[in-house]
């Protein structure tokens, strides 16, 4: 029921042709049934129209899994209590588990073998309730599951004893629907007539001499996957999940996907817009409070507001000026203004440096950083620009692609590109000596590029910035920068004339034969 997820270059789930991303929430953990899934306790939850995916932070390539929304029977939110964080439980459909497990074999890396989960039971020493041992429990490695009734964790010895106790012989095959224990050789249940074939088929496999313990009859209990939200955001995740389940976009998926290039990155939802409905409700709520505070002069048109605005700006400016000039501002006085100032910014919910709600802003910037990396890589934009682009050009291309909706602000983009190396993405942002900020492939350091330029120039060839731009596919700005970088390293010198600037191999420092072997490039 938990299928592996293929990831893009920037460790984000690869979306199917008509699948779109709905919501992303950082620091989330996964539970399977009652127990925490090892290695799946710190990552991003990606909710799309088709799947609810989990991408691990530490090792995204290894520990990223997803639940198909079509397998979800019902959703059960849990608001969290004291230490335990809020969770959303996905109850998967029963038959789905059978089909789910057969179609995409549940290959959670930790389960040793792909056979259908056979339940070994252990008896709790305190309340003697026989708890099912989770299929992926690896003795010694994962922590002991707590007992369902009394919640106390057994000692490991009990678990190991239960594991290697000889499983009871296949006395009867219980019917998956009415749990009546039929005679093993029957193909359909005596009471409800449900087919026992799935268990029958299992019986045949048992004939193959294998060291697998003889298969247990399929338990009717439905599988449970729990998303635990340690960094908040479970409210909006829930609303998105519910609307996705209602819209059931995956049904369109059944139509044969027309072979067309992967759609441009789906316009990621800004976290704020919790669906149009959400927006409407906040606006109307806001409106009522505003009207009440306004009382009389609800301003109708531009001019009256402008008039009011003008003298208020003057007021604020003058007060601020006076404020700075009088040295003896009282602590109490300044603090109250500070408080009101912060209230306002709080109320306006603007990100001001000292009040940054740490969790969410970082999550948003990380997600944006991955989106930018994906945008540059999957659409081969960076490759077409010769592997190097100025940050300003990235801003222009990125926002042009978003066609004017929910544009990325320059400051957000700068924060996002600064996160490239921390997120180990295959692109880097670098401020060159001249002050120009460029985004480039991770592998392409200045050293590598400067060397390429030098080899290309050789001994007696003068090139203009345009020639370099054409040769390496760079923009004019990047070509100029790369040539000047090679110049700073002393490998290249320049000729300036009314024709413009031309760059040559540096004959001042290198004799003809010399530059072949690696002389130290000083300068």
């Amino acid at each position, binding site marked *: 029921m938990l299928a592996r997820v293929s990831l893009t270059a920037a460790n984000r789930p690869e979306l199917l042709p008509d699948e779109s991303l709905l919501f992303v929430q950082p620091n989330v953990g996964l539970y399977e049934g009652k127990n925490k899934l090892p290695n799946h306790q710190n990552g991003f939850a990606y909710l799309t129209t088709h799947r609810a995916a989990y991408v691990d932070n530490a090792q995204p390539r290894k520990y990223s899994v997803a639940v198909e929304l079509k397998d979800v029977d019902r959703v059960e939110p849990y608001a969290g209590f004291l230490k335990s964080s809020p969770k959303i439980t996905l109850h998967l459909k029963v038959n789905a588990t059978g089909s789910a497990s057969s179609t995409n074999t549940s290959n959670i890396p930790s389960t040793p073998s792909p056979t259908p989960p056979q339940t070994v039971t252990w008896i709790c020493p305190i309340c003697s309730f026989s708890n099912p041992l989770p299929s992926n429990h690896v003795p010694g490695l994962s922590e002991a599951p707590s007992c369902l009734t009394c919640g106390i964790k057994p000692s490991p010895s009990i678990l190991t004893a239960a594991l290697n106790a000889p499983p009871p012989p296949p006395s009867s095959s219980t019917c998956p629907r009415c749990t009546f224990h039929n005679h093993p050789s029957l193909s359909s249940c005596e009471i409800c007539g449900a087919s026992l074939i799935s268990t029958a088929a299992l019986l045949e496999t048992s004939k193959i001499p294998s060291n697998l313990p003889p298969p247990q009859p399929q338990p009717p209990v439905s599988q449970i996957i729990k998303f635990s939200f340690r960094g908040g955001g479970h409210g909006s995740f829930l609303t998105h999940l519910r609307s996705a389940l209602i819209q059931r976009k995956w049904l369109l998926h059944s139509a044969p996907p027309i072979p067309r290039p992967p759609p441009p990155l789906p316009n990621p939802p*800004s*976290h*704020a*817009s919790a669906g149009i409905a959400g927006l409407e409700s906040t606006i109307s709520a*806001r409106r009522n409070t*505003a*009207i009440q505070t306004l009382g009389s002069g*609800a301003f109708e048109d531009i001019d009256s*507001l402008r008039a009011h*605005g003008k003298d*208020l*700006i003057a007021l604020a*400016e003058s*007060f*601020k000026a006076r404020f700075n000039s*009088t040295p*003896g*501002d*009282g*602590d*109490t006085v*300044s603090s*109250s203004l*500070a408080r009101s*100032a912060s209230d*306002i*910014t709080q*109320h*306006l*919910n*603007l*990100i*001001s440096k*000292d009040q940054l709600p740490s969790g969410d802003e970082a999550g*948003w*910037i990380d997600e944006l950083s991955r989106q930018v990396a994906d945008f540059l890589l999957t659409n081969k934009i960076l490759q077409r620009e010769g592997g190097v682009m100025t*940050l*300003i*050009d990235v*801003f222009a291309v990125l926002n042009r692609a978003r066609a004017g*909706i*929910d*544009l990325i*602000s*320059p400051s*957000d*983009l*700068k924060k996002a590109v600064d996160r490239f190396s921390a997120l180990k993405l295959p692109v880097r942002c670098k*401020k060159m000596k*001249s*002050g*120009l*900020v460029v985004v480039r492939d991770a592998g392409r350091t200045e050293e590598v590029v400067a060397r390429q330029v030098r080899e290309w120039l050789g001994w007696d060839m003068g090139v203009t910035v345009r020639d370099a731009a054409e040769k390496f596919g760079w*923009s004019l*700005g990047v070509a100029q920068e790369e040539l000047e970088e090679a110049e700073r390293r002393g490998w290249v010198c320049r000729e*300036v*004339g*009314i*024709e*413009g600037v031309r760059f040559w191999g540096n004959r001042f420092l290198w004799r003809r034969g010399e530059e072949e072997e690696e002389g130290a490039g000083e300068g």
Partner: protein
Amino acid sequence: MQKGVGLGALTRNTKASQIYASHGERIQKAHLEELATQLNVFQAVLQEFARRHAKDIRSNPTFRAEFAQMCSAIGVDPLTSSSSKKGSFWAEMLGTSMNDFYFELAVRVVELCRATREGNGGLIAVAEVRDRIMKKDERTGGSSNISEDDILRAVESLKPLGSGFSVIAIGRRQMIRSVPKELNTDQSTVLEVIQVLGFVTPSMLRANLTWDRARVQTALEDLLSDSLVWVDDQADENEYWSPTFISQGLQP
């Protein structure tokens, strides 16, 4: 764009100051509270207004400038991050109309500068940028009304993206420089003289600026090598023209 006018800057200053002289305190406090409430009221008004008049804000350039100034006066910086995650009405409201407007304009300015860079050496007048964008809008049916102040604000918003775009004044005209290379003083002086007639000749420079022949030649050669001027050799004396005059058409 946080030029230290906004409330962010207010909070930082207040932390540093000491107790206010007692006799003025009470009045100060009263005044302060009154301002605080007024700020709250005004902010709510702005918010309500922004919601109802989004279209006007977008289409009316003069008011947009004042609106932006009003916002920055009370600490709201329209150009800051529009990530607007928690659905705060204001940032979202502004996010969709004002922020996007300036970012979109910034994108078009970047593209235009890049396209015309070869012909004007990366120096273009703000007025020309405005004309070209407006003309392009008319052609594509849009009827955008963009002011030079908007263009300056858009270029200003590019600051976090590293050096590259800057606004410099040549004489009275605001120019956008999209190439990191600075102009030396002689180059700027000559460009300023060119603004008068649209072109300049070596003899004119020697007369007006009383420079010697060598200095005039070096300045003109520097301008040519940075592709900041075009040369016309079919007049009796070489004329050096500035590309900013291409779009204005020279017939009287």
